[in-house]
């Protein structure tokens, strides 16, 4: 029991563990909030399935610092993101933008679901007369 409680506590607290070093954090908390938000959307190109905010990789740390330096220099959030994208491509965005090449990615699942529904409707429509026939038969047998 003790072990279970300990595991659950540790598991829950792990949400609050971040890769950001205390030394990296900006003094101005409103700027720091912006930096954190940007970092959460940028993929760490070394570990790939983590954001740079979560990653301990050195390159991720350097990118976090770059994001903060650019914010301090007065760049807008979009300008910071655009700079990183201009170097690494759309791949660094954990939330890929909706555009020509990502069209299938965004709308493919919806289209496939729709096709599935259409097939289902067609299927049941075809079944309807059969079911009615069966019911009729059943009724006759009962008689």
């Amino acid at each position, binding site marked *: 029991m003790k072990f279970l409680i300990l595991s659950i506590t540790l598991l829950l607290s792990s949400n609050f563990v971040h890769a950001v070093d205390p030394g990296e954090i900006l003094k101005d908390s409103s700027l720091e909030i912006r930096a954190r938000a940007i970092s959460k959307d940028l993929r760490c*190109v070394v570990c790939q399935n983590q954001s740079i905010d979560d990653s301990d990789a050195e390159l991720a740390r350097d990118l976090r610092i770059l994001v903060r330096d650019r914010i301090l220099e007065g760049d807008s959030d979009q300008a910071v993101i655009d700079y990183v994208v*201009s170097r690494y*491509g759309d791949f660094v965005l954990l939330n890929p933008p909706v555009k020509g090449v990502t069209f299938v990615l965004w709308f493919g699942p919806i289209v496939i679901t729709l096709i599935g529904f259409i097939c289902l409707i067609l299927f049941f429509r075809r079944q309807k007369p059969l079911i009615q026939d069966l019911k009729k038969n059943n009724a006759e047998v009962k008689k």
Partner: protein
Amino acid sequence: MMKRLAYFLPLVLLAILAAYFSAGLGRDPQTLDSVLINKKVPEFSLPPIRGFNAGLSNNDFLNKVVLVNIFGSWCVSCRIEHPFLMELKKKGVIPIYGINWREQNQDDGPRWLKKFGNPYSLIGDDPKSRGAIAFGVTGAPETFLVDQRGIVRLKHMGPITQQNWNDTLKPAIDKLRNR
């Protein structure tokens, strides 16, 4: 007849998906296509490493085909690649610029070059990854081929070997020079 064919539709779809995914299996997710290809060398400016006079910036790319090599004394693959770069230098094949990436100690880079030889004609010091990020680097070594007009033409990830030199780098360089 048409109805019968429809039964094969799922199979055909499966075959298409299988072909698509099996093509994806062979791709290495670590090799990203560089967005810099056919674009100007990104703006950057790096100071010299300790004991050297000249650093490296985007203004150093003009009127010659050059390689830019990202290296570090901590990087094992760079050590493997190094003798080949020395050979290129010795034969005067092509000027090589170096970006000395993320040395923990300022003396590490210079000491490494002193020990194994210096194949670079210009070297920039890049402790905070500014140059590496400008080039969209994800690991070392990485090498970029830049043409006479300062346009990035090729990105090579991992160590340069005789084989990939013959297969990709050498032909690309020859093509740029013969324009």
